[in-house]
């Protein structure tokens, strides 16, 4: 009996272990798998699985738990390929496990150099896969290829110098035969870039600097004869998207540095706080759109570029990109050319009174000592949103009622040291300067300094359809499904299933730890699962057998 089950489990692996580019392109044809960080190249985090429905979601039960050995935040989104789950444990351990039982096949531990200087924890957001190779971007700025069958390293390439503040926390993106990554380090005065490596050999194929050098278009947006551009940040710490028809890959770019002192870097500071469209073969810039020129507030445009065709043909090509930005505005762009279609604030914003016809913010800086909304962690951040083509709604994890007081300061750049140019503070004198980077199990303050919400936006009109409010802020991504379920978590440790149409709560369970990744759904042997990380564990739910 046991042996038969084993055989059943093993056969499909032999047949399907290879993840070809073809399969990545058509990920929607195999919704039982989760092949890339955001599920598909369009990054909608919308699952076509339909076994779990609003009618039976109340019967979800815990199937298994994976407890990470690391006590860092669990921000990794697992991949699932034909019954095997691949995830990372902070800082840089890759693990392969049985997606139906949670038992581990192998783990591979990369020991990062202690030169690495992550700004905000030694976190990692997951893997990419091509053929039978996994790719992991490490906190000491290495790209490692790992054999998906036996967990052995295949090649390792140094992407940048960790001692100079470069790090990587993102899950790579595979396009065709290349592995694309970007570098973090926006708090250390790096010069950011997106770069691509041959998946076979690890050799660098191209490199796109997110800050143009002398002579390149855009360099003039780093005004004056200074070296500000060389230390201007513009990091890339979240996975991009890809449109195969346009053959463009899209990446959100981080804040300019020093973070809070724009006077030290006059000009628009391209391509900081922008989205760039790149040719995946050459890295050549196709277009860009900048959300926050000459940023004062650390409003990284490090969000997932969500590709959706929402039928706004009258305004544009009909191929859109949806973007709820850390700066508090929700944008619709034409992704063929980066043109601004429309945009409006999705929560309190007072640093700008609106957007011009071209999408440029009309800035209204607050007087010194006054509170700026949104605060330094943003109205949203890297937490994945979701778009459901069934409801036509875009779902954003948001921080509301949340502001900071910004105090800019002159700062000299020194290699490897933090390069911040000031400090953001709390609007409450003597009060807690939270929500901090990490959640806490005691929350008797956030109603005063910032609360969480899932906001359902109609991207056609910008209208808020519904909102699900939480007492604590949320760092959880969102998943929607073909049965109009929405799964999300939050700092409080609750894992919720909401009705994606109405926002009604259908089911919840308390997982007892900060939920800081994005839930995913997959199926093994016809059984649908939903997986989410909380605290230091990954919790996997399914229907009662």
């Amino acid at each position: 009996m046991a042996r038969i089950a084993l055989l059943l489990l093993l056969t499909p692996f032999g047949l399907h272990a290879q993840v070809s580019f073809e399969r990545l392109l058509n990920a929607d044809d195999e919704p039982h798998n989760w092949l890339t960080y955001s599920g598909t190249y369009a990054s909608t985090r919308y699952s076509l699985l339909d076994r779990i429905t609003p009618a039976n979601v109340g019967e979800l039960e815990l199937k298994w738990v994976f407890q990470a050995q690391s006590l860092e935040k669990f921000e990794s989104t697992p991949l699932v390929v034909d019954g095997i789950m691949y995830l990372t444990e902070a800082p840089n351990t890759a693990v392969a496990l049985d997606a139906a039982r949670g038992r581990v096949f192998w783990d591979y531990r990369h020991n990062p150099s202690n030169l690495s200087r992550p700004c905000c924890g030694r976190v990692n957001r997951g893997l990419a896969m091509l053929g039978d190779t996994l790719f992991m971007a490490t906190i000491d700025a290495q790209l490692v290829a790992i054999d998906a069958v036996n967990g052995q390293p295949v090649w390792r390439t140094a992407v940048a110098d960790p001692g100079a503040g470069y790090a990587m926390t993102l899950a790579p993106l595979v396009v065709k035969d290349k592995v694309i990554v970007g570098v973090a380090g926006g708090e250390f005065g790096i010069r950011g870039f997106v770069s691509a490596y041959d998946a076979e050999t690890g050799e660098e194929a191209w490199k796109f600097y997110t800050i143009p050098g002398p002579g390149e278009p855009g360099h003039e947006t780093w005004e004056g004869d200074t070296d500000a551009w060389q230390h201007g940040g513009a990091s890339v710490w979240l996975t991009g998207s890809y449109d195969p028809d346009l053959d463009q890959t899209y990446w959100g770019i981080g804040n300019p540095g020093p973070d809070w002192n724009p006077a030290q870097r006059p000009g628009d500071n391209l391509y900081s706080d922008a989205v760039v469209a790149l040719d995946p073969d050459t890295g050549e810039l196709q277009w860009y759109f900048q959300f926050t020129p000459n940023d004062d507030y650390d409003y990284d445009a490090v969000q997932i570029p969500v590709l959706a065709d929402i039928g706004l043909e009258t305004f544009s090509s009909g191929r859109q990109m949806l973007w709820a930005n850390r700066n508090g505005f929700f944008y619709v762009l034409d992704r063929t050319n980066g043109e601004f279609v429309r945009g409006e604030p999705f929560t309190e914003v007072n640093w700008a009174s609106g957007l011009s016809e071209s999408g440029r913010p009309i800035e209204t800086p607050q007087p010194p000592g006054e509170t700026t909304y949104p605060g330094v962690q943003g109205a949203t951040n890297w937490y994945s949103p979701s778009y459901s083509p069934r409801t036509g709604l875009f779902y954003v994890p948001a921080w509301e009622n949340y502001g900071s007081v910004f105090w800019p300061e002159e700062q000299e750049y020194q290699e490897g040291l933090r390069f911040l140019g000031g400090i953001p503070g709390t609007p409450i004198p003597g009060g807690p300067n939270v929500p901090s980077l990490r959640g806490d199990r005691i929350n008797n303050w956030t109603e005063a300094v910032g609360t969480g919400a899932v906001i359902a936006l109609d991207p056609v009109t910008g209208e808020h359809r519904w909102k699900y409010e939480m007492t604590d802020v949320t760092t959880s991504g969102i998943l929607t499904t073909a049965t109009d379920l929405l799964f999300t978590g939050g700092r409080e440790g609750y894992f919720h299933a909401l009705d994606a149409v109405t926002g009604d709560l259908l089911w919840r369970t308390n997982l007892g730890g900060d939920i800081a990744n994005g839930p995913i759904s997959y199926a093994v042997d016809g059984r649908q699962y939903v997986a989410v990380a909380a605290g230091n564990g990954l919790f996997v739910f399914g229907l009662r057998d």
Partner: protein
Amino acid sequence: MRRLLFGVLASLFAGGQLMAQAHVGQYEQADIAYGSTLYATYCVVCHGESGDLFPGVNLRSGVFRHAASDRDLRGILLDGIPGTTMVAGAYEDAELVALIAYLRNMDTEIGGVALGDATSGQALFAGKGDCGSCHRVAGQGPRFAPDLSDIGAIRSASVLSRALEDPHGSTLPMNRAVRVVTAEGTVINGRRLNEDTYSVQLIAEDERLLSLDKRDLREYTILTAWDLPSYDDVFSEEEVTDLLAYLRSLKGMN
């Protein structure tokens, strides 16, 4: 030699035998100033300007969960705290001396609050102020109002001074009063201990710990002000500085 002396002082301090001001003057002003710039560069992004960004960690308090002596602090800075995001750093000796000097003086540097005589403050607390009729210290007194046993370790002098000057206006979010009316109509006044989207945990006036489902309640109100006595006419300026010195000396059982 110099470092050894610091170590001795620091452990006395951690034992609660020395008042807050005992440290002032033990560190070079130049070190403190240099330390403050290093702090702004390396530490502020995580710990915040006033060193209290992490719940339970207040770098200004003079009491550390992971360190008693300056030598322990040095170890933390060089090695980080495993299992947390507190990072290891390759600091040079001069940088370490400066960072520690700043940590030890951060409160005075930031707050600029004058502290008087803690022994007189203790007498005022028990006597004229009658603070003990509401606050518990070291196991004595009621528990409905915040326990002040370690208030000197978790709050800066400037925050404490505001609490005395303006008891009504200065209530921090973590000390909110809540008013609850249950489905049966029972009214409960409490101090909120914890809250999430669906439930609230509180200590009631009669010192019961209660956890309530919000959706079962007829009313749930978070009050921003308590009905507290004002000390405007009760204490002289000097007495306020004495009370502050006493509060700052309350560092809990460490």
